[in-house]
């Protein structure tokens, strides 16, 4: 093995989600921080086991919704009162009851767009290349495999010790993944 080959991390493959959760818990206990797991579906308890913080996504969505709401109402107010006031059946220019449906739709639109854009950008997607795809058997991560990765960047990362830890946790295989 040449020394100049950069390593992304050590990846352990598990056959079962419970083993993965246990492994994640123990790596966290062992003090590893730069870890991640890869599963074909959301596994309950994994988020806590890896010590992942709750996402700020709900706040982004709330902000998007509020902006949509205010923007939607102001648009209608500005159009109907300032820019192009029309008398429609004697109703007031600022017919706020009539503005509520569009305000509502704009709220939802703002919130939904922030939800998808927020989720994707927090996740850093789209991302065509990622080192983890170099893992042998990684196509199983979208089918029936459960993977745990300890990254090389982790301050506690040590090729031998980390490998031993992962093997002890019941991994089917542990592989070094190139960056």
């Amino acid at each position: 093995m040449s020394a100049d080959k950069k390593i992304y991390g050590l990846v352990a493959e598990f056959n079962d989600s419970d083993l993965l959760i246990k492994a994640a818990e123990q790596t966290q206990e062992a003090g590893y921080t730069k870890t991640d797991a890869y599963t074909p579906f959301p596994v309950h308890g994994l988020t806590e086991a890896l010590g992942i913080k709750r996402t700020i996504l709900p706040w982004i969505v709330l902000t998007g919704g509020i902006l949509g709401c205010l923007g939607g109402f102001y648009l209608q107010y500005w159009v109907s009162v300032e820019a192009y006031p029309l008398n429609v059946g004697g109703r007031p220019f600022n017919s706020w009851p009539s503005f509520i449906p569009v305000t509502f739709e704009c709220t939802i639109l703002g919130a939904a767009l922030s939800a998808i854009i927020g989720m994707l950008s927090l996740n850093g997607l789209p991302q065509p290349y990622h080192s983890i795809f170099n893992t042998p058997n990684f196509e199983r991560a979208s089918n029936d495999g459960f993977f745990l990765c300890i990254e090389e960047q982790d301050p506690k990362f040590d090729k031998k010790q980390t490998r031993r830890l992962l093997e002890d946790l019941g991994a089917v295989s542990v592989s070094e993944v190139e960056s």
Partner: protein
Amino acid sequence: MSDSKDKDSILGQAGPLLDSGQTIQSVGDKVTSVIFRKKQPIPWFVVLGIASMLLGSLTLSVVWLLMKGTGVWGLNIPNAWGFAIVNFVWWIGIGHAGTLISAILFLFKQQWRTSINRFAEAMTLFAVACAGMFPLLHLGRPWVFYWLFPYPSTMGVWPQFRSPLVWDVFAVSTYLTVSVIFWYTGLIPDLATMRDRAKNKVGKIVAGIFAMGWRGSARHWHRYEVAYLLLAGLSTPLVVSVHSVVSLDFAVSIMPGWHTTIFPPYFVAGAIYSGFAMVLTLMIPVRSIYGLKSIVTMRTIDNMAKIMLATGLMVFYGYLNEIFFAWYSGNKYESFMMLNRMTGPYALQYWMLILCNGIIPQLLWFRKVRQNVISLFIISIIVNIGMWLERYIIVVTSLHRDFIPSSWDNYAGTIWDWGLYIGTIGFFLFAMMLFIRWVPMIPIFEIREIIHAKTKKTLGTEKKP
């Protein structure tokens, strides 16, 4: 076996959620096999062929309309809204089931929804696309459709926000956008599965591009689940608002038969009703042709039938309510409208509507009817027809007898009206066939979650919350 059957009958359930014997692996195989199989089954080609012919009818009707103008339709004054709005409301109503299944049932943690949600969501997208065609073509000059949106035009003109038709523009375009977002969000992990399973290079690349590099990271899943839940939470009021806005197109006017306060929820119930009918109409054949009976189980079918019954009853309640208030209001135009609806030139359509939407679906009270896919299939088609008639009756009976008898006129769709309507059905079926062929029609990862939870439960390793 008989023991579990007995339990089902006590609990009023129809069989298990998923057939036993499904594993995490087999679900992936089963669902993607529809896409990766070498040859589609014969019925797929037959439907595609028919749909293509109907698409021809759509093209012809649209071209003729653009050449000649809306005069080729059966419209007149006072019947300025004919097939165009009937079909618009019909299609958009059908679309609502998709969102309902994917969002509301998700919030209510109804697991049976999982096997049909992707399919129903696709249905939503295509139905909304069909719906959108009608108001656009009804504009007369569809090429300037962008006048509908508020933008700083050189003419200095802005939309009139006190009109429900402008609300519609916002409601429908928001609905389409959010439905696409919701649908695509749900698809991302399955696209990754397809990417990793595809055997040919092109398939791998295409799925890979749309999967956006999804790698199933735990951090990603966490944000993904939050985003999905939020989108479900947003879609639920959205779907209600869309059909409510559609109903307001009618209700904020002062036309007898239209101006009534029950319209918003009554329209929403009708939309869900017709939407579930359409899901059943499509799902019943699809699950048997593609061998998906073990995933889209009888329990799912039975539950859909029950929701159809419930919403059908709400719609029927709406009819009774309308009749009572036509009399109770003491408004002679209202009572004339109702009497004319029941006995006038469109009486046949009215009573057909009551039969299709109100009477026949009462058969769904019986378990035997719900358990028989053929009877269910027939009822679902009858409900689809009934819901079309309902909109026809609402639109035409109120318009054709205006306040002043001198402006009375009857309405009937012309061949171009029918050609366009049938053409959109062709478009819908065509799009559905392409969807079945190219996209996993059942959410693989969500089914896996259910199976996973189930196996863990039987192993007794489930954790207490």
